[in-house]
């Protein structure tokens, strides 16, 4: 069972539903009703992008559990008091699992989790943990490292660019890994970054892509855009492009370098199973190639076959853990040393990364 609501529709039903809210939880337990799972995201689900990937993950849960789960999907919920109110509301309606799909929902979701010990919360990209509160994030950097290898192989100018949303560790580390991967193929490669400081402004994102293309960048990494704004302009101007989360191949049929897709299904299925069996335990879920959450796909045929072979080998090594992306020596942009020869950066270094590797030409905004 799946019902999709937008914010307006949701607000309309609020009044009616509020009446029954007090009764709902008791009824749910008594009649063995399906497990209510609510997904809250900040942007429209659309056909592509971050929110779409989360929704697709839940579709797999429905495919597996059928009528034993009841999904409520809420899109376009701005971070802040609105989100807090809506998360409280879906829990009051009897949902026992909450997927809070944005970093900014963290405090509100944590409050709801504390007030409702029988609720299990999965929260995207956060750092807070509680017995019933699991922050989850994808090791996108593993995928962008592979994309960097491909990008360096197809670039003629030796200049790569990234249109990036906000300078937060998750995006910074993925740009660094992209640069390191590119350097594995061409040590002299340069990466320029434009921070647009918005999760959603297609016009500004295209302007940023044009600025990078004017600089001579011929491969663009669309980092944090939920619409094909950057991807479509690259196809139009003849630059290679790739993005994360879900494939935008149809918007750039000839110039799509590939996609670092995120498949949340394995993680969601595991969490639902744990909740139903009563052994859900809050932990930091940092998921990558090994868990099947990061899935590189749609590789462009223009990537030379010998490089493609290396990419496949590297992917296998990253998956089985015999290789790590952030293995020293790694030089910082400012000339300092981030990791000495042979040193592997730990997860805590990656999730708090606030520096660029050498080879990134744009200083990180302070």
């Amino acid at each position, binding site marked *: 069972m799946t019902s999709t609501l937008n914010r307006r529709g949701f607000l309309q039903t609020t009044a009616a539903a509020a009446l029954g809210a007090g009764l709902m939880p008791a009824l749910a337990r008594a009649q063995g009703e399906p497990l209510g799972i609510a997904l809250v995201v900040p942007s429209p689900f659309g056909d592509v992008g971050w929110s779409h990937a989360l929704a697709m993950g839940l579709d797999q849960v429905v495919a597996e559990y059928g009528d034993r789960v009841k999904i409520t999907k809420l899109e376009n919920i701005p971070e802040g008091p609105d989100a807090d109110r809506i998360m409280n509301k879906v829990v009051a309606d009897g949902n026992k699992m909450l997927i809070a799909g944005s970093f900014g929902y963290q405090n509100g979701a944590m409050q709801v989790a504390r007030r409702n010990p029988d609720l299990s919360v999965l929260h995207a990209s956060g750092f807070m943990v509680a017995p019933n509160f699991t922050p989850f994030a994808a090791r996108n950097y593993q995928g962008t490292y592979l994309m960097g290898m491909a990008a360096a192989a197809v670039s003629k100018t030796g200049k790569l660019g990234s249109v990036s949303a906000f300078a937060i560790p998750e995006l910074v580390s993925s740009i660094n890994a992209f640069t390191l991967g590119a350097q594995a193929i061409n040590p002299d490669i340069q990466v320029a970054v434009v921070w647009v400081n918005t999760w959603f402004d297609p*016009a500004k994102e295209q302007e*940023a892509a044009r*600025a990078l293309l004017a*600089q001579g960048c011929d491969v663009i990494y669309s980092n944090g855009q*939920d*619409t*094909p704004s950057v991807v479509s302009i690259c196809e139009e101007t003849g630059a290679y492009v790739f993005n994360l989360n879900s494939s935008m191949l149809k918007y750039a049929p000839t110039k799509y370098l590939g996609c670092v897709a995120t498949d949340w299904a394995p993680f969601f299925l595991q969490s639902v199973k744990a909740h139903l069996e009563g052994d859900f335990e809050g932990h930091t879920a940092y998921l990558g190639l090994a868990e099947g959450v990061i899935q590189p796909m749609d590789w462009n045929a223009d990537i030379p076959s010998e490089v493609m072979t290396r990419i496949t080998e590297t992917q296998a090594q990253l998956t089985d853990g015999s290789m790590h992306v952030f293995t020293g020596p790694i030089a910082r942009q400012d000339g300092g040393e981030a990791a000495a020869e042979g040193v592997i950066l730990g997860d805590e270094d990656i999730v708090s990364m606030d520096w660029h590797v050498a080879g990134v030409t*744009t200083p990180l905004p302070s």
Partner: protein
Amino acid sequence: MIGLSFVLSGMLAAAMPFLLAALGELVAERAGVLNLGIEGMMALGAVTGFVIIFHGFGHATGFLGAGLAGAALSLLFAWLALSLRANQVAAGLAIGIFGQGLSALFGKSYESMTVAGLPKLQLPLLADLPVVGGMFTQDIVVWLGIAATLAIWAVLRMTKLGLIIRAVGENPTAARALGYPVIAVRYCAVMFGGLMAGLAGAYAATVYTPLWADGMIAGRGWIALALVVFGTWMVGRLFFGAILFGAVSLAQLAAQANGVNLNSQLLASLPYIVTIVVLGLISSNKKLLKRNGVASLGVPFDP
């Protein structure tokens, strides 16, 4: 140098969504009506234009439809504000939010879809100049937008129609005493504003960024409102203000792409800061306010 020519060649197109919407709003405000619903009218125009063009009816039809959609929504606003004499601020905000909601509703099944943009037209000779040449390679809407700026300037300044519009905005009682239909003039001015906002939205969603996504107007309607104040209700100043706003927004992106470290948030907020300064300056001086402002702006007229 690359950054400079990038900014010069892109600033006219970047300015077009604010410029078109602000020109329409300027006419409405000159007639004495403050329409705060520009953002919603742009959004509705954007989705209307996008859907028409998506289904293969071409850009001309798309822009026509977008203009009509914007005008239709502004007619609703005009009815509230002029016929029912509702508070213009409240009515404008309500209609603006309504327009954004409508655009989300109509655009639901077109989310993240794309259309083809418009080709660029070159001005001969000028387009071959180094550095500045890019300024003379623009799509047809940019050229028409510049023509519209000139036309609106000429009408407001040199024709009897312009004089009537200004009279209605300055002193509606006197205008009525002279026999001019104040409310009718205001209706037309508001609907012209809605039409221009619709066109501005269509430009944003089908030419500048040829894709539809809910919320893609992203505050440009508010920039247009700020621009009218920035330009102190003068067409010429508004035009240069719009280009300045466009240039600043591109310059901060180009600076980053060039590896220049500057505070992009500060640069991005510069247009708003300048608007506040301008507003502060003209409000602090009664003479300046009288010379630049519109005397009956936002005041309902009860004949």
